[in-house]
């Protein structure tokens, strides 16, 4: 990109597609340092002291918003949460106007969750504040992709050479897209599994394998990442029903016996227990679901530190 190879120069994090391998590694290594902060007597560092962060969540979310909020507090930033219901967007204000009002209030970092793909990009190109994408439509969820990568690297030592299965609702999943971009860049092999309506063959153009048979794939993988079936978003035509989905693509205890003993079970949450993942497996020895939550905090601290810590003027 430029002479600052191995250094961070971005004010915004909009997606993982545009990041280089060096930049991804830099975020992961920075996250190592911030994970260590959680073990100190004083779990707060002054890195973003005097900065203001606004969590602008136009689409509901509890865990991502909480994780960003805690990350910002550990970095000593001041933080304001704005949710869709409480914002003037419901009164007809445009996203750009909302953001300009926030900027006029001297917000340094805006963490945006929005139902439209490209909303963070739109905002980042129009205002001087840092913009962090906390999920935009079915486009990307970069911090989720990074925390999944971080967790795999932590548990497996490295990402290159691993075979990762992403299972479920790929079509509507920004988590899947961010994971695919990041995993391929880092040298992993990715197989997408699900019904053909939710995992169309077109995804193969990204450099992944598509399979509609879960039991063929399970014995060959180092990691299974199960995505939530977003039944609140889905119209009926994508699959006949939950029972049918569980029968074909749910990770049941019987199917889990096909996994290698050291295969990691991941899930971005919230879990539909008994749908995409059996309840006992979610709490079992192979599950790293709670590690993902802990690592999410460290990764978000790293991202806020990097994007919020560089000179923007």
């Amino acid at each position, binding site marked *: 990109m430029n002479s*600052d190879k*191995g*250094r*961070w*120069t971005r004010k915004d994090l909009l997606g993982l597609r545009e990041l280089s391998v060096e930049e991804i590694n*830099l975020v992961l*290594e*920075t996250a*190592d*340092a*911030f994970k*260590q*902060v959680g073990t*100190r*007597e*004083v779990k*707060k*560092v*002054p*890195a*973003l002291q005097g*900065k203001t962060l606004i969590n602008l969540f136009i689409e509901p979310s509890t865990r991502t918003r909480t994780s960003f909020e805690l990350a910002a507090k550990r*970095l000593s930033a001041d933080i304001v949460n704005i949710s869709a219901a409480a914002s003037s967007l419901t009164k007809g204000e445009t996203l750009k106007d909302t953001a300009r009002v926030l900027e006029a209030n001297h917000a340094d970092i805006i963490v945006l969750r929005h139902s439209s793909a490209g909303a963070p990009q739109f905002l980042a190109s129009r205002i001087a504040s840092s913009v962090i994408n906390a999920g935009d439509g079915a486009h990307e969820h970069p911090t989720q992709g990074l925390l999944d990568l971080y967790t795999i690297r932590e548990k497996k030592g490295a990402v290159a050479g691993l075979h990762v299965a992403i299972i479920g609702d790929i079509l509507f999943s920004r988590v899947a897209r961010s994971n695919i971009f990041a995993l391929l860049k880092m040298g992993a092999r990715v197989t997408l599994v699900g019904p053909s309506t939710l995992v169309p063959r077109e995804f193969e153009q990204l450099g992944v394998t598509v399979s509609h048979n879960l039991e063929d794939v399970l014995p060959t993988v180092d990691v299974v990442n199960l995505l939530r079936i977003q039944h609140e978003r889905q119209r009926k035509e994508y699959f006949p029903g939950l029972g049918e989905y569980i029968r074909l693509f749910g990770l049941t205890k019987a199917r889990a016996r096909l996994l290698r003993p050291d295969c990691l079970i991941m899930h971005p949450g919230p879990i539909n227990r008994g749908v995409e993942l059996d309840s006992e497996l979610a709490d079992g020895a192979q599950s790293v679901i709670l590690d993902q939550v802990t690592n999410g905090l460290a990764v978000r601290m*790293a991202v806020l*530190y*990097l994007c*919020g*810590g*560089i*000179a*923007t003027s």
Partner: protein
Amino acid sequence: MSKTRPTNESDAVRIFDAETMQRALRRIAHEIIERNRNLSALVLVGIPARGVELARRLAAVIEAIEKVRVATGVIDVSMHRDDIGTRRALPVVKVSQLPLPLEQRTVVIVDDVLFTGRTCRAAMDAIGSFGRPACIQLAALVDRGHRELPIRPDFVGKNLPTAFAERVRVRLENIDHQPDGVWLLKPEANE
């Protein structure tokens, strides 16, 4: 901190070679022993990257002299710096490692070059987030002056008067894959 400023390579003045650097480290080690009678309560904490290597070398010298293995650690100062938001590119943050608890211990911060004192201030803040040591001391291979804070070193390898625009370059074999040495570099004339 002034890594991008152009310098006149042909005018580099050598301050230390491998032998004189080792001699300076031996003297610092002796001074640390003299100041701190209870070596088991001591921890040498390096600032990445070269301070960490210097702390390791000082611990080795102290062990050779006193037959006591002194604890060492790493303190990363990136999260505690006072110039966040003024740089256009951020380097990677390293993981800090300190023997805990720090209470009742004497911490010696080890850095290669002491300049404005701002890195040392950040290091003291960072150490404070791990606990409250009995005492903090400062060792630097080179003190080049130009302090911007009320900070002074306890142990110095060489006092080197410099102009603000000059640069001090330190090379350590284990880090830089070049022979040990310290050079003073003049700024380029037309800058």
